[in-house]
């Protein structure tokens, strides 16, 4: 099972008007892999995530998830299939409690429809209990039980990141897309995050695709790294080879004036 293809993307392109945000983008991720996506600002990393989660529709190319063509699926269809994501700028349900943030993500696959809810049938009460139990499992796992009744907007940044990961897990995904999970975290929080991602990866048998600027995170947890620059793939490989890749270094640090300096 671990060798089966989870995500297969071919020739993906996204244009906004005349601007080409992403072109000739391919990736294949096998189930259980932990892959990183890096690149300078504006390289198109978030565009990749928006295309994979269905927030944007590609101009060209195909996306297959576990053998199914999801190129033109909506985000909610993708979520139900098992693709969950977090956002670069945290997008929680601010006025809702931490627990309700998690529960809202459990509704699409565990909740009841309107009629069952209003008529208060036994099936509805059972599903509410299951949702309650499940939400506590994630709150416990991410160390959020103490703040479960706080409105999400009142939490410090680091905890909000955790809530967002918890909410993504509640979708019951097999592919988790993390968009800069370490952004804005202090070194301790980053260390915790690395542990959390590793734990989740093993416990829930997840395939994880991760955009990150923090090289320590990327280099320690990813088995494979893809580098984007100016909307196309610059390099792909294991952490060691990426670290040594001269084109990658150039893209990050700027092109040397001439090779004579070297």
């Amino acid at each position, binding site marked *: 099972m671990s060798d089966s293809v989870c995500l297969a993307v071919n020739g993906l392109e996204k244009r906004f008007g005349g601007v080409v945000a992403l072109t000739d983008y391919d990736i294949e991720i096998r189930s259980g892999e932990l892959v990183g996506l890096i690149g300078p600002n504006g390289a198109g990393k978030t565009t990749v995530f928006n295309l994979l989660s269905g927030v944007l529709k590609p101009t060209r190319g195909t996306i297959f998830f576990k053998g199914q063509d999801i190129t033109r699926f909506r985000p909610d269809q993708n979520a139900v299939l098992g693709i969950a*994501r977090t956002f670069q700028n945290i997008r929680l349900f601010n006025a809702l409690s931490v627990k309700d943030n998690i529960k*809202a993500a*459990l509704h*699409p696959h565990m909740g*009841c429809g309107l009629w069952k809810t209003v008529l208060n049938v036994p099936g509805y009460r059972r599903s509410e209990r299951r949702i309650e139990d499940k939400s506590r499992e994630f709150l416990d796992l991410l160390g959020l039980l103490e703040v479960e009744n706080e409105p999400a907007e009142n939490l410090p940044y680091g905890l909000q990141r955790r809530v967002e990961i918890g909410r993504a897990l509640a979708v019951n995904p097999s592919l988790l897309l993390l968009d800069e999970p370490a952004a804005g975290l202090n070194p301790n929080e980053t260390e915790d995050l690395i542990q959390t991602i590793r734990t989740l990866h093993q416990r829930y048998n997840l395939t994880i695709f991760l955009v990150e600027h923090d090289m320590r995170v990327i280099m320690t947890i990813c088995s494979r790294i893809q580098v984007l620059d100016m909307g196309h793939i610059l390099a792909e490989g294991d952490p060691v080879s990426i670290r040594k890749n001269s084109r990658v270094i150039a893209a990050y640090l700027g092109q040397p004036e001439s090779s004579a300096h070297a």
Partner: protein
Amino acid sequence: MKRIPLHQIWYFVFVLSGAVFVFIARSTFNEYILSIINFVGIYIILAVSLNITNGFTGLFSLGHPGFMAIGGYMTSVLTFPVAKKAMFLELPGWLSHLALPFLPALLIGGVCASLTAFVIGVPVLRLRGHYLAVATLGFLIIVQVLITNWESVTRGPLGMNGLPALTHLWWVYAWVVITLYVSWKIKFSSYGRSMLAIREDPLAAQCVGTRLFRTRVVSLALGAFFAGIAGGLWAHLVTAITPASFSLVLAFHIVVMVVVGGSGSISGAFVAAVLFSTITELFRPLEESLDAYGIGEILMALILILILIYRPTGIFGTREPGFLTAKST
């Protein structure tokens, strides 16, 4: 034996004292006071049901009186005595021989309003924010124009007079309880949480699997159902129905109730509805004696402005008072 949770005892106390109140009121108060209490109840239904659409799912709709009009006219046509129908209206054969009891007529009125919401929801709910507000306003105007011009069924601008006076306190407050129950049940359920999630962040809600468009349409239709019921109750309270009753001013009143109470708060919509409808009704005799109309409206607008400045989330925010909600374990 299982202990009954405290908040459920409170629900019971409220419903029971409501029933006692209605019982006593009907035997002690005069017609004028009773009609005010009836109007207050109808406003509660309107505010609490708009709160489902506007407060839970965050759809800023001004179309509520439009749904009310559809429900009101539908119910009126259905309950209108057969003899009068022949005199005043030109209805298709089967309808002209039909006079239904109040409850089925009300329900049909509500369902029609709800179906209309499904139909207009498909185009209108693709819009957001201000655009949605303007589009629902357009819907309200279209309904008014249609009613005014469809004279064979609605008697146009004259409206329908001499409707049977079927509405009384039991009818109104039974529907108040039903409206409160349904919206309370939804708010504290999984379904309601997905509505609130849409209000908070539609894109994030969609990314966790919420069916955005469907949930929005359902919440509009649900609000419309109770608006339709309120329209039917209204028509059979004043025993007349005219297109002018379902105006933008009414939309403004209901929206103010939801905003002042706190978008998403059922208790807030309830309290604000009681407060504002009592104010407008109490000021009416004063306005007439001073020959200065509109004092009630001015006061309402003033309260709205003050609330928006000093407490922009409304009296209750999006929450309910603690003693009414289940304690989490």
